[in-house]
């Protein structure tokens, strides 16, 4: 059993590499990514391929993984909607097919707390059974919602596989996601008269949550939160940056304009994230996973400024 590896999709992303490094000391690891894995640890097998290819099946057949960790979700806001959808949803559907066919005992899907979506009538802390409204205004996140829902139906259809869906809050660190990129801006644009409470988590804490979810018997949906929530302005203060408050209507217009000129990677509906609350209740993860974030708040926020983070 122990010689069966853990298969990690999206292994060459910054989070993927961190996870692979955390896993390879205690288990064999197979990375799958269409990018090349430079500075790969020697004992890690890397399969450079597109998850939509038939070849993925050979990888399952050859390695017989004991667990699959799916991080391979494309966030590139510049890729076309069709490319996005085919990669994220069709690719994931293929992956699920193989997980079922080769009876992989464990599947971990990294979703996101963004699937709930920022709404003016959100409860301060959303539990796992809150509706996934993230796609209502913000079409780019519909893929992610679809992936999450596919994983949920897989949970019921294939009881032999322990399916775990992790919904972490904004991941900060060396990762190149919207939240980290946003905090790298200087000055940081904010919306005049809005300062919502936000939750963030350091990428290393996400890795430890995934490691905990790999334990046998763990299954289900888990919100994963980092240290205490804070107002957005507090993050700006920690970074020692200036905030540039913009009226909402002006901000929305400017973002549409910049987006159509390809001058920004933030689509206009993302503004709701710095306008409304989208925070989660992580009680389940604390109780059932025994997960506690280790990186303190200030360090979590500051880690976006570092190229390599060794906290």
């Amino acid at each position, binding site marked *: 059993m122990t010689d069966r590896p853990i298969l990690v999709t999206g292994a060459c992303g910054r989070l993927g590499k961190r996870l692979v490094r955390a896993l390879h000391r205690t288990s064999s690891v197979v990375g799958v990514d269409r990018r090349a894995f430079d500075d790969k640890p020697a004992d890690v097998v890397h399969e450079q391929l597109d998850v939509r290819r038939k070849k993925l099946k050979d990888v399952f057949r050859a390695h017989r993984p004991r667990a699959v960790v799916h991080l391979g979700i494309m966030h590139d806001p510049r890729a076309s909607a069709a490319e996005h959808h085919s990669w994220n949803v069709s690719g994931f559907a293929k992956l699920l097919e193989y997980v079922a066919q080769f009876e992989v005992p464990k599947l971990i899907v990294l979703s996101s707390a963004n699937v709930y979506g920022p709404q003016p*009538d959100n409860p*301060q802390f959303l539990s796992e059974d809150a509706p996934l409204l993230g796609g209502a205004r913000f079409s780019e996140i519909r893929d992610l919602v679809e992936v999450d829902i596919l994983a949920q139906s897989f949970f019921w259809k294939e009881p032999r596989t322990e399916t775990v869906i992790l919904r972490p809050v904004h991941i900060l660190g060396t990762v190149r996601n919207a939240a980290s990129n946003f905090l790298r801006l200087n000055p940081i644009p904010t919306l005049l008269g809005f300062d919502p409470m936000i939750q963030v988590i350091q990428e290393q804490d996400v890795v430890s949550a995934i490691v905990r979810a790999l334990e046998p018997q763990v299954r289900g949906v888990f919100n994963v939160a980092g240290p205490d929530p804070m107002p957005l302005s507090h993050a700006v203060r920690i970074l020692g940056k*200036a905030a540039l408050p913009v009226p*909402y209507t002006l901000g929305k217009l400017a973002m549409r304009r910049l987006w159509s000129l390809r001058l920004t990677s933030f689509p206009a509906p993302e503004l709701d994230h710095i306008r409304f609350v989208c925070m989660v209740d992580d009680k389940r993860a604390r109780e059932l996973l025994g997960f506690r974030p280790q990186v303190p*708040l200030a360090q979590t926020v500051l880690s976006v400024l570092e190229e390599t983070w060794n906290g």
Partner: protein
Amino acid sequence: MERSLTIKSARKVGGLLHALVKTAKHGVDEFMTDRLGEEFNARLARVPLALGTASVDPFGLDPDWTKYALASVAVLHRHYFRTQVFGAENVPQKRVLFVANHSGQIPIDGALIGASLFMDVEPPRFVRAMVEKWSQTLPFVSLLFSRVGQVVGVPENAKRLLEREEALLVFPEGSRGIAKTFDQRYKLTDFGLGFMRLAMETNTPIVPVAVIGAEEQYVSVKNLASLAKVLRMPSFPLIPQMLLPMGFMPLPVRYRIYFGEPMRFAGDPDDEDSVIEEKVARVRSTVQAMVHRGVRERESVFF
């Protein structure tokens, strides 16, 4: 180049604003101590709070903001409305749900109950109330509400606050109560049922609260309900005093706030409406009796 210039000038303006706010804060601090006494600051230190790393609570309450909000309300409470508080000893120290009559066209009653719980109750509390969800779409308003502890009115938030041993204020009459015309004064309208299910689910004592005085602050002769509907407002009161100079100010009535003995309810919070209604009726009649007594006992509306 141009960009850095804009940023520089933006920073300069920011710096100026910051200095201005600092001076203003200092002025307000002095005024507060002057008007409300050293006692005000001593009370602040005694408020039980559970703050996170970012010195706000999980709902965004910032004691620094709340201090200024409370100070301005407290000045009204002491010097404009000269509020009298009765039954302060009835307020439990832990989780509590205040159920009050609602009146006065604008919710000054809520603000003054909040000021009373800070100024006249031991230990002083920051009361939490629920706000309409559309307020979250308003710039500055949503920010202010969140920093002074007002949360979006959804059941999950209420439950979480009580589980954190907070003091929560609700007006089960809602907008029906606050928009009452003068001839209906001190007659309670129907109560919603939500608060009772909440109290039973979280095992929270209910403290009935009667507010006397608010009904006379604005004398509304009629509520134009159909016009309000067109304008998408909760009500459209006709208030003749508005025609007078400074008529937008509420009349300087004297507020009297009565805190009743805590009421506890056991049972299944998911029980049928008829069962819950009977319990709600008990709370409603208690509040109504307290209101009647308060009106009877006062000798003057203004003194």
